[in-house]
């Protein structure tokens, strides 16, 4: 009985892992992508299979505030200058509701695409979206929005002259003194 009571798992352990964050998400890009493939490369399989899916993804980007410390903030009367770390992609979210199979054609001697195969194709699409983040201008927009938000926030705190700069090599570069 005692052992039974002691073995009861605390609720905390049910979640796989918890991570404390300090990110400020400043932009969300909603993007669409067509995912298509033609499965006709295996020589001994007669007939081919084709699938065309469309998906929508939400990409969020922003800055990591945990890197910011007092050394990155210089105050002189009503003037304040803040060095912020460069923006980065924070998350990509492809909801199941935003995935649609637009067209599927399966040869007479072939088997339909399994769910695992569709997920494999969608994973490739997810990776292509991730690698296109830089070319979409997500990072630049995230930095622009972050600067606008921090400026507005500091104005409300009473600062008249505000300077915001972004440092990409934040951890290696010493804050300006």
């Amino acid at each position, binding site marked *: 009985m005692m052992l039974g009571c002691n073995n009861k798992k605390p609720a905390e352990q049910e979640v796989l892992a*918890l991570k404390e964050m*300090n*990110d400020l998400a400043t932009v969300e890009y909603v993007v669409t*992508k067509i995912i298509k493939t033609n*499965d006709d490369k295996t020589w001994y399989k007669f007939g081919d299979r084709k699938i065309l899916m469309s998906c929508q993804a939400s990409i*969020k980007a922003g800055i990591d505030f945990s890197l910011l410390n007092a050394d990155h903030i210089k105050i002189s009367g009503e003037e304040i200058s803040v060095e912020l770390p460069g923006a980065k992609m924070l998350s990509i979210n492809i909801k199941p509701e935003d995935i649609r199979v637009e067209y599927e054609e399966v040869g007479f001697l072939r088997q339909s695409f399994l769910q695992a195969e569709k997920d494999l194709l969608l994973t490739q699409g997810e990776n292509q979206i991730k690698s296109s983040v830089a070319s979409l201008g997500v990072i630049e927009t995230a930095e622009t929005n972050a600067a606008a938000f921090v400026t507005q926030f500091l104005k409300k705190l009473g600062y008249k002259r505000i300077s915001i700069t972004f440092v990409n090599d934040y951890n290696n570069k010493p804050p300006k003194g």
Partner: protein
Amino acid sequence: MLRSFKSVIILALLLAAIIFLFRKMDLIPSWKQLFGSAPLAIDQTPVLIKEINELASLITVTGYDEVVVDSISADPAQVAIKAITGLPLNPFSPLYRKLVLIARGQVICGTDLKKMTDSSIRVFKDSVAVFIPPAEILDVIVNPSGFETFIESGDWSDEAVKAVKVKARNKMRDRAMQQQLTAKANQRAVMLMTNMLQASGFKKVSITLNAKR
């Protein structure tokens, strides 16, 4: 006779040596490559921007979770047979469709600072009082790469699979709610805002959570 047999043996050994050498040099495919399925690969297609939204979300806690969801349903043909013949459905029949998915994802909690208004910040000399909105679950993310199909038997429509995947996401959200992730996110938001305002030159900082509307 013996000479020709010797020649055949030598020729066969020579051929085997050549095949072995070519395989080592990767000039000819292996048996596995020859009879294995070609990997499924998608074509390169452009990513199109649909909309851009401005955010100000302070992400304070992320929970990484793993859940198992399943769905079982009878094959419509078997149901029709039962209706006609009156025979009971056999639960062990392979005519039952079954889908078991393992979903790995993350629950992102934080504070939506866009909900702050002009009256949310009050400054008096070196003191500041800030009223922040309560933390909420900002996103529950289970991407296609986070799904693993454990069992898939029978034909599953895309709508039915979608419903199982949404069930996994809702389960993850419920678990996060049970474990009061938002309460932890609130504690961290207060701590982070206090630190940031102190670094901005304020001696006395008061952070208050707005009551949930």
